[in-house]
């Protein structure tokens, strides 16, 4: 019974959130804050991707920022060097990121637990080094600038939608974020999601009960890379300038913090904390210097005191409320 109430509450909450998100540009009425929400959307997509591999399948893969970077550079370079449309470069860069995700998976999935994390961190570092040092391709530390915004969409007879303004970019990224969340939720509640969760719980039992573990882990790597690739492409064409620093291991840690504090595997939790950790450092400007310092400390604190993150805290609060509710019903003789 409570699960039904819970999912109804979640549905209502999602609709309300979506309405607020659509009205947001007019509510905020500030380009500065709108830009933060655009970045929040990109961070959500990125964190949702990490959530598939870490939250669902239980694998701490640390090449995420590298894959994000591959999506960003691939998209920017495809558009700038070959002149193809952003709308082709976006799926193409997701596919390229997926390819690298698969490659990293094939090499590192022979390892378990901590070893796997280290091998993927290594790949992340290698990717970063390549961004930094392959100057003829990426322009190195000098950053790759002048990335064009997404090509206008021409609606026959109705004019066209351009993406020169913040507000149109906001809606593009909102659409991508909503789509990502829906895809993620559908995967989570499907046969595939169950298979991934069973691997997280006990991979020997999962394999014996008919779940081809290697294939699903690889799938998790690839899916997570697709999300990172899409986020990267959107990011490149939104900020129009990218540099290796943005795809450092630190960015993986930021995504990791978003997933862990939201609650491993929880899609609403990850969305909430992604928004929070995008806005917080900007709102508390004076604390900017302490951002990574506090992120590091927070990771430890959450692991010790709140291992199930925001979602776990909400679940616990909910249980307490339900318990009190039941008790008061008994007391008033309505049960």
């Amino acid at each position, binding site marked *: 019974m409570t699960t039904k109430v819970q999912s109804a509450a979640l549905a209502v909450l999602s609709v309300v959130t979506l309405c607020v998100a659509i009205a947001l540009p007019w509510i905020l009425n500030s380009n500065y804050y709108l830009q933060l929400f655009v970045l929040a959307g990109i961070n959500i997509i990125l964190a949702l991707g990490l959530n598939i591999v870490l939250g669902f399948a239980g694998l701490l893969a640390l090449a995420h920022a590298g894959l994000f970077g591959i999506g960003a550079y691939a998209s920017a370079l495809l558009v700038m060097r070959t002149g193809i449309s952003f709308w082709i470069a976006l799926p193409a860069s997701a596919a390229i990121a997926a390819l690298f995700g698969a490659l990293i998976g094939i090499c590192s999935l022979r390892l378990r637990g901590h070893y796997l994390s280290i091998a993927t961190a290594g790949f992340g570092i290698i990717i970063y080094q390549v961004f930094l040092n392959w100057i003829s391709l990426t322009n190195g530390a000098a950053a790759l600038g002048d990335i064009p915004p997404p090509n206008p969409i021409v609606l026959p007879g109705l004019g066209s939608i351009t993406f020169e303004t913040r507000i149109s970019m906001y809606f593009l990224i909102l659409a991508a974020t909503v789509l990502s969340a829906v895809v993620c939720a559908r995967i989570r509640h499907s046969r595939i999601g169950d298979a991934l969760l069973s691997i997280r719980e006990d991979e020997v039992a999962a394999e014996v009960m008919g779940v081809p573990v290697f294939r699903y882990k690889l799938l998790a790597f690839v899916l997570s890379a697709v999300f990172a690739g899409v986020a990267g492409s959107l990011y490149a064409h939104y900020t129009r300038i990218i540099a290796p620093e943005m795809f450092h291991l630190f960015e993986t840690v930021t995504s990791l913090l978003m997933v862990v504090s939201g609650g491993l595997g929880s899609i609403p939790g990850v969305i909430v904390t992604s928004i929070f950790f995008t806005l917080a450092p900007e709102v508390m400007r004076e604390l900017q210097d302490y951002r990574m310092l506090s992120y590091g400390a*927070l990771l430890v604190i959450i692991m010790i005191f709140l291992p199930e993150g925001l979602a776990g805290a909400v679940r616990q609060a909910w249980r307490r409320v339900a318990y009190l509710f039941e008790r008061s019903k008994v007391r008033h003789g309505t049960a």
Partner: protein
Amino acid sequence: MTEYLLTLLMSGLVTGSVYTVTALGLTMVYGILNLMNFAHGETYMAGAYFGYFLLAIFGVSYPIAVLGAILGAALLGVVLEMVAFRPLRNAPQLSPLIASLGVSIFLQNLAMLLWSPTPRMFQTPYVDQIVQIGVISMSMQRVIVFIVCVVLIVALYLVVQRTSLGKSMRAVALDAEAAALMGIDSRMVILATFAIGSALAGVAGALVGPILILSPFMGVPIILKAFAVVIMGGFGSIQGTVLAGFVLGITESFGVLVIPTAYIDTIAFVLLIATLLVRPTGLFAERVEENV
């Protein structure tokens, strides 16, 4: 030409000895807690800074500075174990790993705030002192690094194999519960392991600091290389770790002949991945099958 190659070999041996010492500290902690500690790199960084401050600010002699770095790093390790890792002893496997990544990021940024991101030169009297060994010449500092590291490797091997502390460590690593039944205080053994492992990282930092440039982020490349060495060497094998450490040092050193210097740091991972593709359990470990 031979001279050049010999110089490369020597410099490979020096770096290899540093990798080995750092990796041994890492593998000790892994053996006992099954934790790959990302913050080990920051302990190394802290060791280098401790040594630097003792020498540059307090004006003590270099050997005393190194000793101070050892103590400081051991203390840091003990504090980290008590604050961050002990509360997670019974948590799921990934929790301490994520926490150690958090500690690592925390310490890097703490160092940046305390000591500024500006790179520093750690000057010792031995850096500019050149010694002639046969046809090759190298700085006294490098000779010291190599000798101290080799001594430490041998000492560690003896401690683990011969002393009662070493026996307790091996017992706890094999089966913590059984060790507790035998009257071994596993908390103390774990603390001692953290202290020794961290001391090894600290001494490595204080030794190579003068050859490199100090920065709050100097722990990142070394930790990843130490990880690679530990995995290549095979779980828990001291001999394997030593061999893998020197192989990596020498390969990197000769790598300058074939690849651009910017990519030298990636050699560790190329070697690691190659090893994994051929032998997923490392070069030396026996194939272990999970008990079902």
